[in-house]
Every structure is written in structure tokens, then in C-alpha cells.
């Protein structure tokens, strides 16, 4: 049964949907048209709007993209131009990627929670003239920087709410642009397909700005060929099919979301679901029940914190059931999932636990249908990782960067190890440099940093390896283990290894600790800043009738210090067991008087700690930690959400924590 307009090759592809358009379509617009021909009526994308999941089929998406591309073309958008895309995960914004690509342009997603001045840098660097944004919030930011950047000529907005009285000539509603596009298509029916045919696999398909842990953000340019190769590699590795469902909730400007909600979806043809709003993600996830899930460790951490808080509020019987069955799960859950030998009694207990606890818990988390889940972007705390695996969620780690299209290492199902990030994926070569840095050659390699040949030359070695900046090694099984950022891994004064992130991640597993920053390089001991988790600790304090007026007050409470001290000492006991890390036990710590905040540049937009910046900003506190003071006064300038600044001051107490014998033995020896 052959369908009109479908070639023999495509018919083969239809019978074997897992080919991901290989040999038929080598650019993203071509892939879109490929799916529209092959499975036009299948659902491509959904969005919850007015409480109802609205669906668009692949052929509808192709029409929408065509209308948008024609609209942009009519407005003067041409090959070689860059299109800024800013907003939450919305179908129309995903279509904007495809529309820009269809015309040979390059989509440039920006973080939607960036403040206007941060956006200015990217807009200038990428010479943006056209922008498609979500709503009034983003329009306001662009209008704010318009005087500094008059080159921005066209701003299209999806949601017209609140914008009716805006009279700026640069503004136009997305709906109007779409109408223009439909009209333009009627007049020039060959324009779209002609433009798509001109897109070449070696063209740049997207520019993703790195979060800039160091220096100004850099625009990472990927080609269609590279990004599609990475997405296809992933598809083959994990067996994604058009039946898979994902929930797109991560910032569109992050490579993770771009690969997962755009790259892989376009290749494998699975369904992308956009949540109703960022607050409804949990509910939406339960309704959709995705089969494939990707999140940075932070997301898994937050989910777990929410669960733990609710368990603490549950009745005594439920609490008891939960904790005793979680013990069983920790003992044998991951082993059962990996098909390892487990005693019959444990199997029976686990089966009962699955019925009573793990199954319902997976359901609450919206993870009942998860076939494969990944985490990456930062090291995951081993305990956190084990929790999800033990309740039967196939959570695996992967390793990659924006520059490598996150296509470097992945753990295979059944071969997941706590402390490794898996084996090199097909087509990837890994080398370890003399200083321990991991060097990577991957099909998903970046083309270049935009307008930064110096940075490109620094990051790609002459023989074609990307310098990741991470320190690691390949173990006996050939699995890659990452210790830390190469430049962060340090040595204590006595020469023993100091891996700050490793310790911080251990601390952050405690629900009451939100952020931790460890110091110790070239010093004789390790000390830490702790940020308490307001939600978890606030709840804890309420239960104990502990009054507090706000964050600063709560953070300074001796009871809270006692709580944190217990956590720190438990970590010390854990560290003492590992000979090469025993020196990293935390001797002194303090609870910081304010939350570390991306708006204050203390964290990156992806919420990684800027260690050296924090050390500099709170130098007095660091000195006090390494001194012998019991408290230190500090005044810190803070920026409020409305842009005003103010000072907060506090007398921050410092506590000593007990360290354990292994360390004591080593020092004596």
C-alpha cells in the first residue's frame, strides 16, 4: 500500500521508524517535512491551554512553520540572519526555531529569566534584528534595552495580553505575522520549499550561549549535520520511537532542552508536551506520563525534597511504611532493575513495596511510564541517584557539554554505576590529557564559537579534540569518571586531594541544604558555606514551634546550626571511609545569611556556584572560617527583584564539626 508522494526509501523508513530520517533528511526543516509526509496525522506537539491539552499533528506543525517562515521572509528575514527566541516552552517558540532554519537563518534562544542587561550582551554579540518572544514580560525587557541597541527592528510576541496599548513600531503580534505569512505563501507558493531545499547540512542550525561560568557568554554554533548526528546517536542508543512522550520544561536556551525537545524529537519523531505554566509542571507531568525524561540533578533534587516534606507531614503509619520499604528499596531495588541476583525474600519484599509504596510514589512523581530517564549537566549526589533507581525509575547519567551536543558518554541500561557517567557513545573518542583533563572527539562537535576564533582555537586542539575542562579518568571497565572541573580540583596543604564539588554534592543531598560552597585549595583544612533550604527548614522549624522572622533569622538559629552540624558530620564520616578523600572532611562551617542568587552573579543561570566570585565577595567570612573566630559580622549589598538595592547585615556564627578517625590517623601518621 503505497501512498502518493512517498518514495520507496521513505516507505522503508515508515516500516522502520527508528531510522530517524537517515539518508532522507539531513537538516531540521527537511526532517520536519519528512515526518509531516510520513506520519502527518501523528501528534507532534501538545500544549495545555485553558485546562485542555491541545495537539498539533506533524502536518499541522509543518503548515504552521511554513506560515511563520513565509511571514518572516515577507518581513525581510534572510539567510544568514539570527533570530532571537525568548520565553517559556511554547509550541510557537519551538516552531520559530524551525522557521528560522527553513530560511537559512540561525535561531538564538535566550534564557527567559535573564534581566534586560544580560540580554543586551547576547543581542549585540549575535547582531540580532529579529526576535520572537513569549509575552509582555519579555517585550518590556527588549524595549528597555532598545535605546542601547536600536538595531533590533522587529519584535514579535505570542501572548498579546497587556500589550494592547503598546505603540512601538518594532512590535507585532505573532498572529499578525502568521497572517502575513499565509498571504505571502499564497503569492509565492514555492518560496518555502525552495528555501528549505537550499539549507545545507553544514549550515549552522542553532547558536546556544554558554552560561558563562567564566567570562562573557560565548555563542556555540552547531551545524545541522553535527546536531542531527548527536540526536540520531542518542535515538539509536536508547531506542526512541515516535511513540515516546516527553515533557519540555527546561529553559529553551539550555542545550539539554534543545537536544531533548527539539533535536531528538525532530529525529525520532516523538511527541513534545509543553506545560501550562512553570508552576504546573508537576501536575502536567502526571497527566502526560512521559516515557522519557531528562533533567539536571537539581530538578530531581527538588522533586525529592517535595516528596520528603510531604512524607514528613503524613500520618505515622504511612511514614513508617515509607521508611521501612525505602530501606528494602535501597538494599535491592537498583539490583532488581539491573537484573542482578537478589535473594527471594528481598524480591518478595520489594514486590510488596512496589505495590504499596514505590508504584504510587512513581505515580505521584508522574514517572509511572518512564522507560528511560537521564540526568546530566552537573554531578548528581550518589544518594539522590540511588533513590530514584531503587524505586524502579531507570535513571541514568550522561555526560556532555553545550559544545559537544551532550553527545559524549551515557550509561547503558543495566550497566549504570553510581560514580561513573558511562561509556563513550558510538563514534566518540576520549583521551585523557596529562593534567587529567578529558578530551573528546564527537560527531556532535561544535563548528565554532560565534565571532571568537581565539576561543575556538583554545578549546579545540589541532588534532580535533574538544577540551572539556573537566578532570576525570577511564576506569578498568572503560567507564568515564568525572571528579570535578579540572581547574577546581585542588590539593590541600598536605598534598591530599580536594574535590570541592564532590563534597558539596554530598551536602546538597540533605533536604535542608540548598547550596554548599567548600574552600580548601592550598589550605590546611576544608571549610564550607551552607545555604539552608527555606522550604524544608522552614517546615522543620514550624513543627518544632521555632519562631523565625525570615531567612536571615532562621539561618542564624542555634537549632538550625545543630541540624546542619549533624549533616556535616555525617558527610565527614562518609568521607573518612574513602582513603583518598578523607582529607576533605569539613572542619568548620557557617550558614550563610542570604541565599546565593543568579541575579547577584553568585550562581550561573543554570544554578552552578561561581566559586571564586563567592570567595571574593564573602572574603571576610572565608578568612573567619580559616581563622579561629566564633562569629563574623558582615554587610552585604543585595539587589531586590524590582531593581532597588539594599544592605543586609548579620553576625554569622561559625561552628566546628567533628572529623573522623581515618583522617585523624592519617594526620598522625
Amino acid at each position: 500500500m503505497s501512498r502518493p508522494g512517498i518514495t520507496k526509501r521513505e516507505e522503508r523508513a515508515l516500516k522502520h521508524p527508528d531510522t530517524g530520517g537517515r539518508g532522507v533528511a539531513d537538516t531540521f526543516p527537511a526532517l520536519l517535512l519528512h515526518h509531516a509526509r510520513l506520519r502527518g496525522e501523528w501528534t507532534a506537539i501538545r500544549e495545555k491551554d485553558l485546562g485542555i491539552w491541545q495537539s498539533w499533528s506533524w502536518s499541522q506543525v509543518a503548515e504552521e512553520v511554513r506560515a511563520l517562515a513565509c511571514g518572516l521572509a515577507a518581513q525581510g528575514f534572510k539567510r544568514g540572519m539570527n533570530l532571537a527566541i525568548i520565553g517559556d516552552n511554547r509550541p510557537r517558540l519551538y516552531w520559530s526555531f524551525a522557521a528560522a532554519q527553513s530560511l537559512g537563518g540561525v535561531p538564538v534562544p535566550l534564557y527567559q529569566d535573564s534581566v534586560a542587561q544580560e540580554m543586551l550582551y547576547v543581542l549585540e554579540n549575535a547582531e540580532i534584528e529579529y526576535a520572537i518572544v513569549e509575552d509582555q514580560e519579555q517585550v518590556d525587557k527588549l524595549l528597555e534595552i532598545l535605546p542601547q541597541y536600536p538595531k533590533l527592528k522587529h519584535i514579535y510576541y505570542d501572548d498579546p495580553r497587556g500589550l494592547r496599548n503598546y505603540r512601538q513600531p518594532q512590535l507585532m503580534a505573532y498572529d499578525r505575522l502568521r497572517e502575513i505569512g499565509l498571504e505571502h505563501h499564497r503569492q509565492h507558493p514555492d518560496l518555502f520549499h525552495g528555501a528549505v531545499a537550499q539549507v545545507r547540512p553544514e549550515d549552522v542550525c542553532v547558536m546556544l550561549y554558554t552560561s558563562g561560568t567564566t567570562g562573557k557568554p560565548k555563542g556555540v554554533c552547531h551545524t545541522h549535520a553535527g546536531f542531527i548526528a548527536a540526536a540520531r546517536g542518542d535515538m539509536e542508543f536508547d531506542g526512541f520511537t515516535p511513540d515516546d512522550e516527553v515533557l519540555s520544561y527546561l529553559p529553551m536556551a539550555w542545550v539539554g532542552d534543545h537536544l531533548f525537545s527539539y533535536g531528538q524529537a525532530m529525529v525520532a519523531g516523538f511527541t513534545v508536551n509543553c506545560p501550562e505554566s512553570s508552576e504546573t509542571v508537576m501536575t502536567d507531568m502526571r497527566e502526560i506520563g512521559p516515557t522519557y525524561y531528562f533533567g539536571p540533578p537539581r530538578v530531581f533534587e527538588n522533586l525529592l525534597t517535595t516528596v520528603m516534606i510531604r512524607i514528613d507531614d503524613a500520618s505515622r503509619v504511612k511514614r513508617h511504611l515509607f521508611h521501612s520499604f525505602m530501606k528494602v528499596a535501597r538494599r535491592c531495588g537498583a539490583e532488581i532493575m539491573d537484573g542482578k541476583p537478589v535473594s527471594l525474600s528481598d524480591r518478595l519484599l520489594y514486590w510488596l513495596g512496589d505495590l504499596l509504596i514505590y508504584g504510587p510514589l512513581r505515580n505521584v512523581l508522574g514517572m509511572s511510564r518512564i522507560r528511560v530517564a537521564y540526568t546530566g549537566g552537573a554531578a548528581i549526589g550518589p544518594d539522590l541517584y540511588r533513590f530514584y533507581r531503587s524505586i524502579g525509575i531507570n535513571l541514568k547519567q550522561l555526560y556532555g557539554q553545550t559544545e559537544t551536543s551532550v553527545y559524549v558518554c551515557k550509561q547503558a541500561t543495566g550497566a549504570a554505576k553510581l560514580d561513573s557517567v558511562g561509556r563513550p557513545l558510538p563514534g566518540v573518542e576520549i583521551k585523557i590529557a596529562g593534567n587529567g583533563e578529558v578530551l573528546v572527539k564527537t560527531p556532535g562537535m561544535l563548528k565554532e564559537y560565534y565571532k571568537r576564533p581565539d576561543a575556538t582555537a583554545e578549546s579545540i586542539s589541532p588534532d580535533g579534540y574538544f577540551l572539556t575542562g573537566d578532570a576525570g579518568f577511564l576506569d578498568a571497565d572503560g567507564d568515564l569518571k568525572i571528579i570535578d572541573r579540572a581547574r577546581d580540583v585542588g590539593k590541600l596543604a598536605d598534598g591530599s586531594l580536594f574535590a570541592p564539588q564532590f563534597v558539596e554534592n554530598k551536602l546538597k543531598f540533605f533536604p535542608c541544604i540548598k547550596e554548599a560552597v567548600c574552600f580548601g585549595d592550598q589550605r590546611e583544612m576544608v571549610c564550607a558555606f551552607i545555604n539552608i533550604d527555606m522550604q524544608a527548614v522552614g517546615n522543620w522549624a514550624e513543627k518544632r514551634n521555632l519562631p523565625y522572622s525570615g531567612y536571615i533569622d532562621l539561618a542564624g538559629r542555634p537549632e538550625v546550626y545543630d541540624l546542619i552540624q549533624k549533616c556535616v558530620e555525617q558527610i565527614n564520616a562518609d568521607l573518612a571511609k574513602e582513603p583518598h578523600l578523607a582529607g576533605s572532611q569539613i572542619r568548620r562551617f557557617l550558614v550563610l545569611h542570604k541565599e546565593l542568587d543568579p541575579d547577584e552573579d553568585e550562581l550561573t543561570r543554570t544554578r552552578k556556584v561561581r566559586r571564586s566570585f563567592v570567595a571574593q565577595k564573602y572574603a571576610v567570612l572565608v578568612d573567619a572560617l580559616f581563622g579561629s573566630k566564633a562569629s563574623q559580622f558582615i554587610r552585604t549589598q543585595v539587589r531586590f527583584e524590582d531593581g532597588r538595592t539594599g544592605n543586609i547585615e548579620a553576625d554569622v556564627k561559625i561552628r566546628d564539626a567533628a572529623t573522623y578517625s581515618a583522617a585523624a590517623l592519617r594526620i598522625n601518621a
Partner: protein
Amino acid sequence: MNANPADRRIGDVILKMENISLTFGGVKALNEISFDVCEHEIRAIIGPNGAGKSSLLNVINGVYHPNEGTITYKGNTRRQMRPHEAASQGIARTFQNIALFKGMTVLDNIMTGRTLKMHAGFLSQCLYYGSARREELEHREKVEQIIDFLQIESIRKTPVGRLAYGLQKRVELGRALAAEPELLLLDEPMAGMNVEEKQDMSRFILDVNDEFGTTIVLIEHDMGVVMDLSDRVVVLDYGRNIGDGTPDEVRGNQAVIDAYLGVAH
């Protein structure tokens, strides 16, 4: 919805109160009050405690019947009206103390605001059949638009009793909006809120006025809010109208200053 902003300008008088007096036994709650409200404007009623502000709202939507005076609403002059008549003529309100169904979800609470617009019979509603089904779908869509407008998607299915106070106020506004009122009476919409909640609520009130062209009469104690939001202000004290005009005029009015700050007798 896409009307020209010129259309949004304040129109003719929609509600005119003339010489309204209301007594409870020997207490004169309202004493010969006269004032008017124009289409599309935001009209504030201010005054010290016990000045008769809430009584005046109750007179407008028919809960209290004035002893004297006349009310002209959309050209119809009358002395008395029952609350459901007021509602069916496009007057909706919120209350000083939240009056929601605590055990029902946000969605259901807002749905109750649609009651007057439902026409299907009892039986067909029970069976969820025919016109009842069609109607329910239409009403649900309208309610969802309001949920979207007020940005309360994440609490759609949460029982109202479990929500924070500020959110309950927002739900109550949602229920009033569900009736698609022409005249919206808000009794202290921002009482007991923190600064951020007040900012949100002010934004919603302005948006309602702007998006739907709804005429709004509001009682509020926060003078900053009143001066920022309203087009005209009427000031009551001991049941008397002691000042009426734009926020700036009222601010300069000696009688108003005396009523608020007290005066040596």
C-alpha cells in the same frame, strides 16, 4: 476585545445615586448620599471605619433597601431591587470577608459565578445530556479563560480553604468576573495583603478595567492604591458625602483631611 483604546475612555453615567438615606433603627448609616459612576471608570469609595462604605455597596447591589432616594442604573430608576435582580443586570461583587465555598475547588467556585447564565433544566444537568453538556463546556471554557487571566492555573483543582489569603481574594475576584459583569463592586480587595499581593491585585484590577472595559467601584483603605488606581474618589464620613472628585482634588479637600486626621472641636 480588540477595541481601539479610544473606546476605553470613560463614557456616560451608568449608575446615579440620588439622596440615598439608609437607617438601621436610630442609626443613620447613609445620609442623603448622591454620587454617580461613569462607564469604564474606576471609582473609589473611601472613608474612616463605620463611614457607611459597605452599606453603600449593599444598597447598589440590592442587599439593603434605602429608606429614601433613588438609584438610576443604565437608565432605569428605582428605589428597591433584590440581589439576584442586580446580578442579572450585570452587577457583581466581592466581599470584605471572603465568601467562597471553602471545601470546593477553585474551578468549582468560579463556576458558581456562572449560575445566572445557565439555562439547562435540573434533570438534563443531572444526566449531563444535550444542551446541559454543551452549556457546561461553554461555561468551563469561560472559566478557564478567567483562570488564565488571573494566572491561577496551578491551583485550579485545589480546595479554596487550603489557599493563602491573597490567593483566595484572587479567586473571589475570579468568581465575580465569571458573571461577566458590567459593574464590578470590590469591597476592600486588598485588605490583609502584603505589598507584593497588593501589587498583583492592583495589576489585575487595572487589567480587568482595560481588557473587559468593566466599570469598577471599589472600597479601599490603602490610600496609595486608591490614588494610583482610581479615576474618581468619593469620601464618606458618618454616612455623609464629604468629598468627591479626582484623587488630587480629594487629597486637597479640607473636610477630607479633617475626617482622616481628626480635628479639634
